[in-house]
């Protein structure tokens, strides 16, 4: 196990690594849960399956990452315990991931913003000194490339579609953009992980992200909103009011019938 901790037995290092893995895991889990709410409601049968497939990929990523986090934590919590028995302040997902679905275009804009973020993060993690994380990232990267194909396709279709579809996705983009400051603003955990060779440097990834975003927006004839400096702090456990409601629904069964299985 010591090979997985390039920082040696430094306790703070270990704790930072656990927090870092939880951020990745919770972002995937919360977004997967959000997307699952579309099942049975998407505008077409084919889109229903499409969104469900994205959700399944994300929940699969969350399982791998949460299982790893449980091992790092070493308190006997498995991926289910971490997913279903933690409270909102313990969740470390990006604030963007927990934002409500809104209409189909709104969901797709949120998806696209996180896809473009995950593309950079997972790509950067494939060369991590944490070989477990690198392997998970390599698998997730393949899935994410498809997610981005899916979401950027819809972004272009709706952005460059009718007057109404354009107005709706531009509106969604304007509303969700304020959460993007969090994506690449490093805190001491990100910096510690980067220094240890475990995680890529966020400011460097931001350049690639920004270029891709501009490219996709140009195709979709959408306008990039002005940068808003206010950083949200979902990854530090400070969430918008939406996460509590999401967890209430997601955790209801395990909270009501602890240990229930089927």
């Amino acid at each position, binding site marked *: 196990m010591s090979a997985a901790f390039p920082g040696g037995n430094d306790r703070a290092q270990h704790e930072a690594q656990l927090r870092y893995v939880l951020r990745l895991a919770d972002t995937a889990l919360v977004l997967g849960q959000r997307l699952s709410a579309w099942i049975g409601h998407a505008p077409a049968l*084919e889109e229903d*399956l499409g969104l469900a*497939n994205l959700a399944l990929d994300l929940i699969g990523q969350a399982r791998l990452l949460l299982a790893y986090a449980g091992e790092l934590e070493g308190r006997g919590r498995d991926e289910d315990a971490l997913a279903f028995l933690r409270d909102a302040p313990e969740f470390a997902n990006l604030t963007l991931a927990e934002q409500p679905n809104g209409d189909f275009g709104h969901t797709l804009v949120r998806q696209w913003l996180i896809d473009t973020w995950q593309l950079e993060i997972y790509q950067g993690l494939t060369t991590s000194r944490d070989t477990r994380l690198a392997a998970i990232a390599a698998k997730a990267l393949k899935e994410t490339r*498809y997610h981005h*194909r*899916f979401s950027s*396709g819809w972004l272009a*279709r709706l952005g460059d579609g009718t007057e109404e579809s354009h107005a709706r996705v531009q509106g969604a983009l304007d509303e969700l953009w304020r959460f993007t400051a969090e994506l690449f603003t490093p805190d001491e955990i990100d910096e510690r992980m980067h220094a240890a060779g475990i995680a890529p440097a966020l400011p460097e990834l931001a350049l690639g992200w920004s270029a891709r975003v501009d490219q996709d927006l140009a195709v979709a004839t959408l306008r990039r909103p002005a940068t808003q400096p206010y950083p949200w702090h979902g990854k530090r456990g400070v969430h918008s009011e939406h996460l509590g409601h999401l967890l209430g629904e997601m955790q209801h069964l395990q909270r009501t019938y602890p240990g229930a299985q089927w």
Partner: protein
Amino acid sequence: MSDDWPLFEVFIRSRAGLEHKHVGSVHAADARMAIEHARDVYTRRQEGVSIWVVRSADISASDPEEAEALFEPARDKVYRHPTFYVIPEEVKNL
């Protein structure tokens, strides 16, 4: 919404080296979306390594009314099957 979208026929190649086979159809606004839909609907269980889609409207089909004229004349031409011919004893490894 999907009623507004044209229908695409989907062809999947199940393994490298095999031919694409017709597996069904999807509604989609454009060819790119049709491939994504086909991927999501028809390759969830690793059924394929390649997808073709073609607008159903672009397929020209034979008319069932003409089936007799088109296909029955072949019925009495059994000599077109290789099994019609008796292979001489002397010929090996044919």
